């Protein structure tokens, strides 16, 4: 007997036989990322309350031009027209922003949460047409590796800011003294989480060792590949952990600077 196979109809948007709460993870991603983007955009446009004592908010670091003592090249230069919205954060935030936007983990997560491609595994999609990352425009996501190098540069700059964050100026004498405040700890934890996120990036894993079929023959690569792989297994965790720590460090410094919170000193 000849059997003619038939194809089952594709399901419509959101249709599935799944009974579990399949919508919960994409919903949490949708809310989490939206909150972050809204807050980061708002904070970047404020151009105020981004420093407190020796602390500089990671949203504003490095401060290339700006009014705080952290600025590399002094205040906003005259050649930037007055009608262009300016803040030190707007000059630098696009880089870490695009690093995260093109990260493999975030891509998979927001394709589901924001674009329904698919809304969740084994759940029907809203559109029939699909090009994925095979062609324009999403093929451009492959620039991720360049943003990774920039992000590695940021790790050094943010580590330097932690170093600066242990030198407090005594308001009465004007003398500089060594100290650690809660803000110093927050900035340090932030750098650790960002490093775990960046060094466990899939591109890093590829470059330091994944590229070789016999990584054991390259001793340095061998060790680096093992480290990057270990971090890579927790990439999702560090992606969210570092997102939260960056935003919280900014909120903390902002509220201290506004006088709403006080910064407790460890010593």
């Amino acid at each position, binding site marked *: 007997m000849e*059997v003619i*196979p*038939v*194809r*089952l109809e*594709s*399901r419509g948007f959101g249709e*599935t*036989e*799944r*009974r*579990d709460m399949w919508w919960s993870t994409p919903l949490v991603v949708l809310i989490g990322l939206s909150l972050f983007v809204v807050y980061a955009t708002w904070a970047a446009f404020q151009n105020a309350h981004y420093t407190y004592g020796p602390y500089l908010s990671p949203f504003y670091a490095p401060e290339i031009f700006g009014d705080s003592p952290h600025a590399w090249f002094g205040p906003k230069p005259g050649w930037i027209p007055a009608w262009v919205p300016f803040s030190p954060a707007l000059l630098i935030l696009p880089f870490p922003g695009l690093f995260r936007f093109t990260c*493999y983990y975030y*891509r*998979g997560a927001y*394709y*589901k949460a924001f674009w329904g*491609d*698919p809304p969740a*595994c*084994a759940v*029907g*999609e809203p559109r*029939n047409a*699909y*090009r*994925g*990352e*095979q*062609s324009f425009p*999403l*093929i451009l996501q*492959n620039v991720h*590796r*360049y943003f990774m190098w920039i992000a590695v540069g940021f790790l050094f700059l943010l580590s330097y800011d932690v170093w600066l964050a242990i030198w407090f100026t005594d308001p009465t004498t004007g003398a500089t003294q060594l100290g650690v405040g809660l803000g110093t700890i927050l900035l340090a934890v932030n750098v650790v989480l960002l490093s775990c996120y960046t060094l466990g990036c*899939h*591109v890093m*894993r*590829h470059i330091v060792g*994944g*590229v070789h*079929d*016999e*990584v*054991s*023959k390259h001793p340095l690569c*061998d060790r680096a590949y093992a480290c990057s792989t270990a971090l*890579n*297994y927790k*990439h999702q965790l560090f992606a969210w952990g570092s997102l939260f720590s960056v935003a919280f460090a900014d909120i903390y410094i902002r509220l201290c600077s506004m006088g709403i919170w006080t910064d407790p000193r460890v010593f």
Partner: protein
Amino acid sequence: MNSDATFKIWRTHPEGGGTYQDFHTQVSEGMVVLDVVHRIQAEQAPDLAVRWNCKAGKCGSCSAEINGNPRLMCMTRLDELNLWEPVTVEPMRAFPSIKDLVTDVSWNYRVKTQIQKFQPRHADAPDGTWRMAQRDVDRVQEFRKCIECFLCQDVCHVLRDHHKHEEFIGPRFFVYNAALEMHPLDTADRLPALKDDNGIGFCNITKCCTKVCPEHIHITDNAIIPLKERVVSRYYDPVSRLLRMFG
């Protein structure tokens, strides 16, 4: 535990299409979904078609969708399911249905024949043997756990919803490609095919394949993304290209 349960099982009609048929049956402790299907077959529906072989999660024959999740029927215990409501069992949706729970997965075998075979380098020792470091082999060993259940192919939306069977080989065959391409001894070059004919760019790394794999292979993180990165270095990254020209 000895109780009644209702199973809604997909039945195909001879004239095409299909519907769910409800079966009420006795279930007892320790049963898996495949046992229930067999009991229904024995007691109520002798013409119910189901494919199975090992009942040990190793042959990859009994793939189906249980309450909408791609699973092996023989590895899905009833105590993981809510038996207060009917349990649905339907065939894999990414492949054409032959009868009831049996699908035609022959497309996968055709795809596999098109992938370049293993091409080892010349032997390392005069006696015709090779030397490899354990950890280099470990990396590809993970991929060899695949039992070809094709659950990952079933859940992948590129095949399931967009039917790109002509342009995209699916996660199972990225795992297969990775096992060969990253093998310490292999010399063949599969990157041109991965980029064009195999359509690796269609994967949007949503990791559904990884979630359903009964062998817990890290399909997306360890096979697909590393292959994507190799394709990027070769074709989309002008800096890597330049370095290669001078390096």
